[in-house]
């Protein structure tokens, strides 16, 4: 199965036939040209990054590769053999395995049942369980999970472990090409390192690996070559080690993104929020902070530190066990006995970290979502239009009309609607929980621009600066946009320091609790 001729060292082989080759792939959906002639070549033992904004055509290209779509024109080869899958099952038979962001394991079944799912060793209608166990044990050994009991129910495993099971599954079915689609978005730093180690082992075993990710630092760390897509075309490719991040970003967005994190003059004004020793039911354990107009305060920390739980306590979505919350724009009791309605009315707004499950109502229109927190008793389409127009134009939000259902929008534009909701409700305090997670670079840039404008205000024209409290797991983003940063670890928020006094290293130390004796 494996081509022993392929070289173990990465990427530079041009005399050897690529394991995967796609040439001239086009795909139209009605009048929309999703792919306008894209080519891609990945050699055995190479990790090839596929980079591009949302809507650039990455997922369409991968769907063509996996067999979920049939390309209109173009051709594909695997190990030199023509490859024209009619369905994803076809693709799997030919050795193409997709590892998606949303895992596709059967949650209620066991590990071994999942590994052989769809290709079960059978004798007539009967399962050959002995064979199933053997295959599963072998596959698990490849991904470093040899100690995992085979009958563990998948839903009890962590995200990272489930991802490894998916990889094991691909290897068990004889894959030659592995495609990783945003594999690290919900992984901790430790799990990411494990994954990269595994990918390097897979490289050594001559798999051809396509790696799709928004995180350019990851791409620099793990990939050998890259291809950049923009608007359905491949606009550049090269050797990762020789490319500069700025150039790659420029290729992605088609313009010079000199300053991804704009920073105007910000003047810190009056305090708008004070939190003292807030503790929730389980998390957070102890959070104290102060927030002023004119500043962006960031909260860093690893997954599970309790940051989102803190926001939920702050916004009265979860119970506060003890502590005081004082919001100067709302008169009334301290101690956090507000309701979300009072908070919106009093000038506090929140953007949830989970767009799909909490942030937005997907069946409803853009207008409904945007205005949901502040609506008059009688609502006319005219009013809704007028309410949405300024934000659609300013941020901007790419859509056909404000009455379009929001699920038609790209992730980036959906997130902009979630943020526009705060602007429509005219809030003074913005609580942003992972505001740029899972969206394209272009949208990210627009959001950073927006945050900067909100935090600086426009004193000459009477626009007061706002206060922004931002949770993020993406350190460059925090360092780029914030004025002060605090780190949460195991439910406790450490001292908030000025941006000049921290760097990525110190934040990571504090976040993982290795900074001082615990």
């Amino acid at each position, binding site marked *: 199965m494996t081509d022993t001729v392929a070289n173990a060292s990465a990427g530079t082989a041009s005399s050897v036939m690529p394991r995967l080759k796609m040439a001239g792939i086009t795909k139209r959906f009605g009048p929309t040209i999703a792919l306008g002639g894209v080519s891609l070549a990945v050699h055995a033992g190479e990790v090839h990054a596929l980079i591009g904004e949302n809507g650039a055509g990455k997922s369409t290209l991968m769907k063509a590769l996996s067999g979920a779509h049939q390309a209109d024109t173009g051709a594909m080869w695997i190990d030199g053999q023509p490859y024209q899958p009619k369905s994803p099952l076809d693709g799997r038979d030919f050795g193409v395995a997709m590892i998606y962001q949303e895992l596709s394991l059967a949650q209620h079944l066991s590990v071994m049942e999942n590994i052989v799912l769809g290709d079960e060793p059978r004798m007539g209608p009967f399962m050959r369980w002995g064979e199933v166990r053997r295959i599963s044990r072998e596959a698990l050994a490849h991904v470093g999970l040899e100690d995992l009991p085979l009958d563990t129910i998948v839903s009890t495993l962590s995200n990272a472990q489930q991802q490894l099971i998916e990889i094991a599954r691909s290897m068990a079915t004889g894959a030659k090409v592995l495609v990783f689609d945003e594999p690290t978005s919900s992984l901790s730093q430790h799990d990411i390192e494990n994954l990269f180690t595994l990918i390097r082992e897979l490289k050594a075993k001559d798999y051809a690996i396509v790696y799709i990710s928004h995180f350019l630092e990851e791409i620099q760390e793990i990939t050998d070559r890259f291809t950049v897509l923009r608007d359905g075309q491949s606009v550049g490719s090269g050797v990762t080690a020789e490319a500069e991040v700025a150039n790659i970003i420029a290729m992605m967005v088609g313009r010079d993104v000199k300053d991804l994190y704009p920073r105007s003059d910000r003047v810190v004004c009056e305090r708008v929020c004070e939190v003292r020793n807030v503790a929730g039911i389980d998390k957070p354990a102890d959070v104290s902070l102060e927030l002023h107009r004119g500043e962006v305060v960031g909260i860093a920390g690893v997954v599970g530190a309790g940051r989102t739980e803190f926001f939920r306590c702050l916004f009265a979505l979860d119970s506060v066990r003890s502590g005081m919350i004082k919001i100067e724009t709302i008169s009334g009791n301290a101690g956090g006995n507000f*309701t979300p309605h009072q908070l919106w009315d009093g000038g506090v707004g929140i953007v949830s970290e989970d767009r799909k*499950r909490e942030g*937005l109502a997907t*069946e409803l229109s853009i207008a*409904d979502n945007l205005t949901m927190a502040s609506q008059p008793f009688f*609502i006319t389409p005219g009013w809704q239009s007028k309410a949405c127009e300024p934000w659609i134009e300013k941020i901007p939000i790419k859509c056909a009309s404000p009455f379009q259902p929001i*699920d*038609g929008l790209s992730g980036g534009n959906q997130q902009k609607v979630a943020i526009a909701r705060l602007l429509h409700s005219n809030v003074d305090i913005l609580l942003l929980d992972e505001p740029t997670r899972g969206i394209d670079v272009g949208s990210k840039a627009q959001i950073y621009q927006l945050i900067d404008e909100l935090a600086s205000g426009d004193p000459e024209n009477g626009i007061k600066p706002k206060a922004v409290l931002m949770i993020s797991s993406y350190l460059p983003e925090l360092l780029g946009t914030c004025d002060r940063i605090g780190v949460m670890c195991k439910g406790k928020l450490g001292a908030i320091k000025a941006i000049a006094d921290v760097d990525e290293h110190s934040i990571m130390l504090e976040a993982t609790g290795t900074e001082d004796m615990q």
Partner: protein
Amino acid sequence: MNQKVLKIAGQAGPLIALIFVFGLFAILGGGDFCQWGTMNDILMLSAIVGIAAVGATLIIISGGIDLSVGCTLAAVTIILARLLNLKSGDTYLVEQYPVLWPLCAAIGGIVLGGAIGLLIGAAVVGHIGRAAAVILGGLVIVWLRDGNSMPLVVCILLGIVAGGILWYLNRVTIKKTPLPPFIVTLGLWASLRGAAKWMAGGSAVYTDIDEVDGTAIWLNNLMRDIKVGDLILPMPGVWIWIVLAIVIGLMLTYTRFGRHIYAVGSNENTARLCGINVEKTKILTYVVAIGCAGIAGVLRFSWLGMGDPTTDMGTELLVIAAVVIGGASLNGGVGGIGGTIIGTLIIMIVYKGCTVLGLENFVQEIVTGAIIVAAVALDQVRHRKAE
């Protein structure tokens, strides 16, 4: 372009189906079908189910469901019959106040609907204590009334007070146990009819008085055609249906409460995040919706001329079918009154059309079932294509 076509198809889908079904029976039935009498009959058949369906639309958009609406209709007819049979001394109240008293009785029926809605809403939201409060209120009324001859008004007032006290005492319930609407209304479906039979004292309740001074009580005329000279106009029940549908439809689209119903049905978490009082919205939705069912119950009473605890068995499913054919999604967040009206009409056109054509009952039933499945399947296709 494709998106737009799909969108129009989705919204116009039920309308196209309506035209198709109507056209089909028009061709097959010819003159027998295409006469005013048949059209009027269809409207008449649609009115009661239609009003209940308007209310059910609200519930389904909010993400809930009601399996007990048929039982509510039955209970309301019983209440109405009992109220109309009330005497004050030796004379019937309805003889003393031939216009006002039936109105009070009708309002009583609607309030019963609202109270049942309050019960369901409280249970769905998890306020078991408050749900119990409603039941307590009802029990107090019945118990006081049964035991002795206290005036009905006093019984009702005491019942409201007792229920109100318990409701208020339960306002700070911290631990709530939300129950799925399916289960709550299933339980009600099982028990409400029993309660109705208890109220009826066993079987049907006949009204002692049908006319006062030679004129029929107006309440009994709601489901009879209006004759203006030679012209036969649709009965008051039909007009009530139309007006109610317009009012509720406007409320759904143009008021904040309507938008909140959609929000809660589409994504409860989002609604809560945006400051919407999800629980209040749900309870209010059930109260309004089953209040509508109360109106339908009043019409059912007019239709039957008596109180019948066994009426409307299976109506709940017709109501749900009408809403679903009209394009609403049982997952919530999608639907509208216009679609429900179309769904109701489609069901009744099929029913009446089959009768006109002389087809056996089972044909109508099978066709209706096929339409329900087709409507939902089309809706699923539309949703999948939109992704």
